[in-house]
């Protein structure tokens, strides 16, 4: 079954990485220059970041994008 690209959900480790640093969602939002609501939408997988924001997140956590975000199609 071919799943439409728009329906593929990304999984991410944002919440884990944030918890490891003991940051609140507001702390992370401030570091990324986005709203807390956006951080929440990212963490719950309801919103996929743009490529620039994904790179920004990767730089902030000193990781590669694919270490933070994984699409479910690739992992299954």
């Amino acid at each position, binding site marked *: 079954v071919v799943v439409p690209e728009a329906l593929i959900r990304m999984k991410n480790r944002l919440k884990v990485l944030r918890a490891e640093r003991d940051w609140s969602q507001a702390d992370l*939002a*401030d570091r990324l*220059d*986005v*709203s807390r*609501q*956006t951080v929440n*939408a*990212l963490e719950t997988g309801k*919103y996929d*970041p*743009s490529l620039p*924001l994904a790179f920004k997140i990767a730089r902030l956590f000193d990781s590669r994008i694919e270490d933070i975000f994984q699409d479910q199609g690739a992992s299954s």
Partner: protein
Amino acid sequence: MTQRFDEGGRRRLKWMVAAGALASPVVIVAALIAVGFMEAHAKAEGGRATGVVFVMAALVGYLALLGWGAWRLFGPRRSSDGRVRRASAIQVLIGTGIASLIGGLLAGLFLGMTSDVDSGGELIHEPAFLPLVLGMMLFSGVATVVYYRRLDEAALEAHKFAWLWGAQSGLFVATCLALIAFITSEDTGTGMDGVFFTVSAAFIGYGIAWGVWWFRKR
């Protein structure tokens, strides 16, 4: 949403404030020309002319209010940790609403005190009405751009989604209702002109924006 100011950001801020300061006299001159034209027209028609001095005083006060509002929108803020922050998108929205409310109240007060019309509806024909409304529209337009530019990408996506699906659906329903009213009513002028104008303007705006988007991506 907050954002740190780097050197480029400070330079852009200065340019924005300078552009606003330069634009104000242009607005004043345009408003005075409009008021003068309408005053002359009112005299030629034998109608009662509003005192030019009062109109000018109101305009100066109104523009001062707009200037204050613009400074609150564009001006830098420094938080407790020493970082310079800009007002967030929601602060811009609330500030614009409050400034518009105060501006509208002052404009209404001025028009009510300087005219001798019997009802509020007639105020729309007062000479000072046009420049006041144009000024408010200009202020709202600038504030909208500022608000838009301070949204993050998820909030922008939400607005795009809402405009595409929500606004288009509303436009479709309004058109259907107007068509039904037009077909079932004996009065052939039942709102169709207004609906036709609105839908046409929306499609023209859509076409222009679509073209600009692709032109910039070439």
